[in-house]
């Protein structure tokens, strides 16, 4: 059962699913929101960072330009600069240019706008003096105090800025404008600074732009080479965003024409109105957010895995007792009560269930045992009943057979009776006719002895036929018993004395000295005895002895033996000798012994036979002794008076077949004894 419990059932997986749902779904939702929020924050932070960079650089740019303006202002306000001769001014300005490499040109204009001093790094020895009277730069510096603008590309390459300040002469109480100091400053330094602050990598870049969308001027770029181009411009889509803004600062994602997106921020530079633009590719700008997302996802994955494993363990643990129960139930179903798996009774509902289950299985076991026992009993009773039914059936069958046999015998008897009567008439006629012939012939003088002989044969045969009919009729007749109390010894003596024994037969008598008394129907009994003697004589054609004996055997029984010293009866014949109409003789009805048996039965007795091949056969007739205390026995009516006790069983009577009762020789076979 260990292997069965090791596995997990469906229930465990259901638990697992629910655990995962319960534990992971909220976490997933919360995590997702957190990531979302963090992403937003991070992006905003990135943008702000960009903006602050832009603003910071705008400051830098502002400082950068004002530095040079300040330099010019200081220079113009040098003591006596206004009144200095141009040579001195030139010398002075030369120093300024040496200190500040960004100055490409410096010029001095008088109040009328004529150039008085012109110094330049790339000018020849005697540069041409210009008239700036109508120039914006001159007019603005003279009228408004200073000028900053005039973005141009020096020699078509370097972006330059023109600065101009008035040259003032401070008198008592008033200040007089003597001219304008104008400088042209290279803006390369800005690009260098941008390059340092925003080293170009990927698509990160920073730039300073002036002008409007249509006419923009790239002042500086983190990649200086960009700024030095004659037609240097930022991409159109960026320019559209930053140059159309009214806000002083801002930023956001920008989709570029090549399909990439960047995070851009801008800030306006005060005084000059230029825009600082800082750009970073989305990927790097949002790197933190992306990394955080990946980190969170990794954590989530771990959580899922750990939850999964934990849930598996928990689900298995929770469902294990249930699986044990299930297994136990299967065992119960299979009827293996003794083979239940061990159940640990935990202190919870499952434990209670297991407890109930154990009780239930015990009860089931008990009930099943009872059921089995009952079944066994039932089977036993069933078998017993079957045996009884069989026995009764056998008895019934035997009784039925007996009945059928009796009925058949009765039918045969009836038929024999009818046939017998019908034959008697013709026999009587034959008899009469023969008698007539014989009588007639007796009166003749000469008689043919052969005819006489044949007449005798006919008479003899008619007698024979008559005696057969007699026998059949005797057997088939149902006559009332007429028992008479008789002294057996005396009676048998009388029977023997009148029996016509042939001379070659000896008669040996051995009668019981106690002189047994019986109640018998003398006529019937005589017929039986004569049949037995006749049979005995018939099997001893040469010589032999008929042995007649009486003896009281056991209590209340007398045995009458009639034996011969003939050849004995073979076994196969012995079994049938008492069957009516069974005969081994050429002439015989097969009723002699049947009559004997009928008489014995009629007296409540029994007939036995003992035979030995070559030695002889003895028939034993058992009869109940007369008991004067039982008056019913000898009653005249009492054919039915049967002894209460059954005839004793003696040594196994080997059934013997003997044949027919002898044709009992009667002096006048045609007539029945009549009381005359």
């Amino acid at each position, binding site marked *: 059962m260990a292997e069965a419990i090791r596995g997990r059932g469906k229930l465990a997986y259901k638990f697992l699913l629910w655990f995962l749902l319960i534990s992971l779904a909220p976490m997933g939702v919360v995590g997702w929101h957190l990531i979302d929020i963090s992403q937003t924050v991070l992006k905003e932070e990135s943008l702000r960072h960009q903006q602050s960079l832009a603003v910071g650089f705008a400051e830098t740019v502002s400082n950068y330009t004002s530095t040079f303006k300040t330099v010019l202002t200081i220079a113009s306000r040098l003591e006596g600069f206004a009144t200095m001769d141009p040579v001195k001014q030139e010398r002075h300005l030369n120093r300024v240019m040496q200190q500040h490499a960004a100055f490409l040109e410096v010029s001095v204009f008088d109040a009328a706008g004529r150039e008085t001093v012109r110094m330049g790094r790339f000018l020849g020895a005697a540069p041409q003096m210009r008239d700036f009277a109508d120039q914006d730069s001159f007019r603005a510096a003279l009228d408004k105090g200073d000028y900053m603008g005039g973005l141009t590309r020096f020699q078509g390459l370097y972006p330059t800025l023109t600065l101009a300040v008035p040259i003032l002469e401070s008198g008592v109480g008033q200040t007089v404008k003597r001219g304008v100091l104008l400088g042209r400053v290279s803006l390369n330094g800005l690009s260098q600074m941008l390059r340092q602050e925003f080293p170009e990598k990927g698509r990160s870049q920073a730039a300073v732009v002036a002008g409007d969308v249509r006419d923009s001027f790239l002042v500086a770029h983190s990649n200086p080479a960009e700024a030095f181009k004659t037609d240097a411009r930022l991409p159109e889509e960026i320019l559209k965003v930053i140059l159309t803004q009214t806000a002083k600062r801002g930023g956001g994602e920008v989709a570029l024409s090549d399909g990439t997106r960047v995070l851009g921020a801008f800030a306006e530079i005060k005084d000059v109105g230029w825009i600082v633009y800082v750009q970073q590719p989305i990927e790097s700008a949002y790197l933190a957010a992306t990394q955080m997302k990946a980190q969170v996802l990794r954590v989530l994955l771990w959580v899922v895995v750990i939850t999964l494993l934990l849930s598996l363990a928990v689900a298995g643990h929770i469902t294990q007792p249930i699986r044990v129960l299930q297994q136990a139930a299967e065992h119960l179903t299979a009827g293996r009560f003794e083979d239940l798996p061990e159940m640990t009774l935990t202190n919870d509902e499952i434990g209670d269930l297991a407890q109930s289950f154990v009780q239930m299985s015990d009860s089931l076991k008990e009930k099943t045992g009872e059921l089995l026992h009952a079944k066994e009993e039932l089977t036993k009773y069933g078998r017993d009943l079957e045996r009884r039914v069989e026995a009764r059936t056998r008895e019934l069958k035997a009784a039925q057979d007996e009945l059928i046999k009796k009925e058949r015998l009765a039918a045969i008897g009836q038929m024999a*009776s009818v046939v017998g*009567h*019908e034959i*008697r*008439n*013709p*026999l*009587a*006629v034959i*008899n*009469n*006719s023969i*008698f*007539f012939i014989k*009588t*007639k012939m007796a009166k003749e003088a000469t008689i043919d002895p052969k005819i006489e002989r044949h007449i005798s044969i006919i008479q003899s045969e*008619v007698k024979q036929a*008559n005696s057969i009919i007699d026998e059949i*009729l005797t057997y088939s*007749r149902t006559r009332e018993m007429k028992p008479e109390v008789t002294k057996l010894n005396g009676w048998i003596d009388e029977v023997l004395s009148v029996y016509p024994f042939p001379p070659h037969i000896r008669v040996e008598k051995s009668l019981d000295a106690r002189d047994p008394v019986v109640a018998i129907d003398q006529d019937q009994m005589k017929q039986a005895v004569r049949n037995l003697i006749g049979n005995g004589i018939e099997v001893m054609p040469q010589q032999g002895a008929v042995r007649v004996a009486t003896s009281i055997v056991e209590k209340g029984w007398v045995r009458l033996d009639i034996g011969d010293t003939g050849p004995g009866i073979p076994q196969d014949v012995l079994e049938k000798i008492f069957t009516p109409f069974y005969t081994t003789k050429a002439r015989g009805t097969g009723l002699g012994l049947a009559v004997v048996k009928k008489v014995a039965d009629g007296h409540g007795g029994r007939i036995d036979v003992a035979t030995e091949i070559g030695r002889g056969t003895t028939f034993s007739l058992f009869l109940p002794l007369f008991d004067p205390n039982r008056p019913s026995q000898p009653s005249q009516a009492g054919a039915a008076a049967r002894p209460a006790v059954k005839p004793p069983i003696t040594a196994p009577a080997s059934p013997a077949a003997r044949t027919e009762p002898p044709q009992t020789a009667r002096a*006048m076979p*045609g*007539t*029945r004894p*009549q009381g005359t």
Partner: protein
Amino acid sequence: MAQNQPVKLLVIDDDAHLRESLAEVLELDGFECLQAGAAADGIATAKKNNPMVVIMDIQLPDSSGFQICQELRKHSRETILIMMTGRFLSAEEKTQGFELGADEYLTKPFDLQELSVRIRQLLSRGRS
């Protein structure tokens, strides 16, 4: 009756052969035998001829021997009535026959010599 005059007998039986053979045998013995094949015929013959002995079968096609017996006994008290039967008779039947006036029963077949002797015995004794 004179000794030289033959004794008159009547045999009533529906079996012609039996009747005839019986009559002939008895005639050989010196009786004069009349025959009848049925009860009515027999009774008529008996009344007309007054036989000394009537031998009759119990079973006849038109009547029974018992009735003939009864009838003839009314006619004559002296006639010797002998009944013949082919079957065993119960004691009741025999008693009934004797009460009706039968003198003797014969069970077929019977010994003719014996019959002859028996008839003469009955004749010599006479009915009384």
